[in-house]
């Protein structure tokens, strides 16, 4: 028995040059986890925080109590939206390489989280996303051109050139503005939900945070306020195993699941296979019903994997095995839903190839349309004087003076 403690440093299972290792990942077989009533007391359902809700088995069969029994058409739409997200991401990534946009972030491997959740929620439900939830926009029907114009900071940019690429918002679509500061949206979603409860609105809020960002204070604020006021909110931790170069153990995932934080605060915590469209859909529906019926918040941990680099500024080969994603035990969400549909006799490789081609065309056409409104390098350009607007509702004198100064500087004064 040692008489001195030694600083423990969380273990990263595999670094570049090493062989991928996911033996540490605690899995449950598909169908193995019970489905309590959505109104169950949080103290009675703590098992949900340690297990892993899965519906699709390895053969692509949907089984068990969480099987959501969705319409085939909904599954096909889900597949389309996931695939569109991926095709869009890939295209933007290539375009960034060409220098036409300054920055991009893909969601490769995590498409089910956003798409299934958007589908399981209602249009009036308010979404507070992180930067890796483009699938929410797509599943809610946002025209790609709008997203592309934001990424281009061009004359039709919804942010008027003020935000980094991918930090979208969509008021009519009930999708909140994304901050470059991690985690800040999480307790705001709770505040929104508190207001919904105060105002008697029949809507819930949902928010997403990376497992890395869950270390921020705002994660705690969100759980605490949600618990105290029993706010109708769904708090999602997207555990894609990495926070830039840092493995999830550094966010506390080594000792316990992220879902387990929920029960610690007296709220329902639930761990789900984030690459299983059906499972994500099912738990979201469950949590939404729980919230809508006055039973309060749910913390959902989505177990998934960040298939791509953190962003276009990152090179994951510096910190993890190049082929790590290939070894990820939970597979690819698009592939898994596709196999399920094929098994149902409602899809085929040919239809899939056809859909891919259609979406590629759609993305290419949207890009062409978007660039008409300008790119980083080509006009038209946004008017730089927009810079002074929206700091306040009305421009105060000192900003009017600075605006005039800039005009003088640019020879327009």
């Amino acid at each position, binding site marked *: 028995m040692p008489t001195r403690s030694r600083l423990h440093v969380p273990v990263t299972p595999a670094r570049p040059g090493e062989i991928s290792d996911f033996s540490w990942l605690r899995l449950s077989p598909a169908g193995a986890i019970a489905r309590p009533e959505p109104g169950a007391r949080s103290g009675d359902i703590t098992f949900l925080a340690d297990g892993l809700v899965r519906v699709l088995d390895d053969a692509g069969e949907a089984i068990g109590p969480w099987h959501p029994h969705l319409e085939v058409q909904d599954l096909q739409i889900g597949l389309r939206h996931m695939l569109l997200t991926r095709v869009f991401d890939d295209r933007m990534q290539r375009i960034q390489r060409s220098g036409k946009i300054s920055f991009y972030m893909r969601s490769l491997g995590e498409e089910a989280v956003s798409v299934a959740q958007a589908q399981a929620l209602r249009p009036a439900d308010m979404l507070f996303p992180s930067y890796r939830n483009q699938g929410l926009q797509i599943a809610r029907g946002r025209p790609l051109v709008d997203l592309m114009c934001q990424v281009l900071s061009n004359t039709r940019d919804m942010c008027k050139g003020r935000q980094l690429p991918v930090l979208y918002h969509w008021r009519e679509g009930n999708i909140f503005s994304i901050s470059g500061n991690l985690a800040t949206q999480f307790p705001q979603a709770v*505040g929104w939900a508190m*207001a919904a409860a105060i105002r008697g609105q029949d809507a819930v809020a949902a928010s997403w945070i990376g497992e890395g960002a869950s270390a921020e204070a705002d994660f705690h604020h969100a759980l605490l306020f949600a618990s105290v006021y029993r706010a109708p909110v769904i708090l999602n931790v997207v555990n894609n195993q990495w926070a830039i170069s840092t493995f999830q153990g550094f966010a506390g995932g080594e000792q316990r699941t992220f879902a387990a934080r929920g029960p610690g605060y007296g709220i329902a915590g639930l761990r789900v296979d984030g690459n299983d469209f059906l499972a994500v859909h099912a738990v979201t529906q469950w949590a939404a019903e729980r919230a809508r019926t006055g039973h309060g918040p749910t913390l959902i941990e989505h177990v998934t994997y960040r298939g791509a680099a953190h962003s276009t500024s990152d090179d994951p080969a510096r910190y993890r095995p190049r082929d790590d994603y290939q070894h990820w035990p939970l597979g690819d969400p698009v592939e898994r839903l596709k196999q399920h549909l094929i098994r149902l006799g409602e899809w085929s490789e040919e239809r899939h190839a056809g859909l891919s081609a259609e979406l590629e065309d759609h993305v290419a056409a949207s890009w062409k349309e978007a660039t008409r409104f300008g790119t980083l390098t080509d006009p038209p350009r946004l008017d730089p004087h927009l810079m002074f607007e929206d700091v*306040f509702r009305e421009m105060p004198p*000192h900003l009017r003076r600075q605006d005039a100064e800039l005009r003088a500087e640019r020879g327009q004064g």
Partner: protein
Amino acid sequence: MAQMNLIHALNSAMDVMLGRDPAVVVLGEDIGYFGGVFRVTEGLQRKYGEHRVLDTPIAEGGIIAAAIGMGVNGLRPVAEIQFADYIYPGYDQIVSELARLRYRSAGEFFAPVTVRTPCGGGIRGGQTHSQSPEAIFAHVSGLKVVMPSNPYDAKGLLIASIEDDDPVIFFEPKRLYNGPFDGNPNQAAVPWSAHPLGEVPEGHYTVPIGKAAIARAGSDLTIVTYGTMVHVCEAAARGLGLDAEIVDVRTMVPLDTDTICASVARTGRCVIAHEATRFAGFGAELAATIQEQCFWNLEAPILRVAGWDTPYPHAFEWEYFPGQARVVRALRTVMEAG
């Protein structure tokens, strides 16, 4: 009209707004059932219920964040931070979120949050109940920053802040809650009922954000100040027999440079006074702007009177506080220069 002290005036502002606008909610630590440690929210929960006047967990960051979310969902939250010294855990949500939401979403989202917080010293509160951190908010683009110096302005400015669609950080000089303190702790307390600005309408009215007030017209020199120091400076100038013009800044952002600079241009001499620590304090912005705009009129360097650049010490409250003696020295120096 009624006689109100600063506490009653602020309470009345919230009462009026809770009554007029169902979107207004009030939240903070100990503000509900108890009515706040300074009793500023007394009676409001009883009158408007637990869903309009909310006690919160002790988490300033969570309070601001929740208020932002509420604001986005159509409410008009008035959040109390129990002491300005405890606002820092909420600083990130204020700076990165509250101040920037309208900008980054190109006006599609905003949160009309008012953050009320007692500031300043003079109550033997030591270093964590006496701070005046207005400068670190004034520097942040997107925030309005307000500090009244009397009950009339307090009520009118608080109503204006609540009605404002921009976020407002609303500082309440706690030493003024019960009376217009002139900096002399050994003198008997003066109540607001003895002051003309203790007369406050019962109903709705506003004092515009962005306008300074001429607290006293004069011609010898201009004193630019706000909060508690308005009264300290008045007493100091009176003691010296100076005909000082005293500009009560009232709102740091947007700053009413026109009123301030017009006065200095006329008098040619200027002293700036605040309780906050001097170095990189708000007085620096005032001095920098005034010297730039009034350079050719200035007959003497602009002097700043402020708290020392140390934490606010418990035992040395009156040596720390920029009281009349310190103001007088500055006034003398400025009057004698040139």
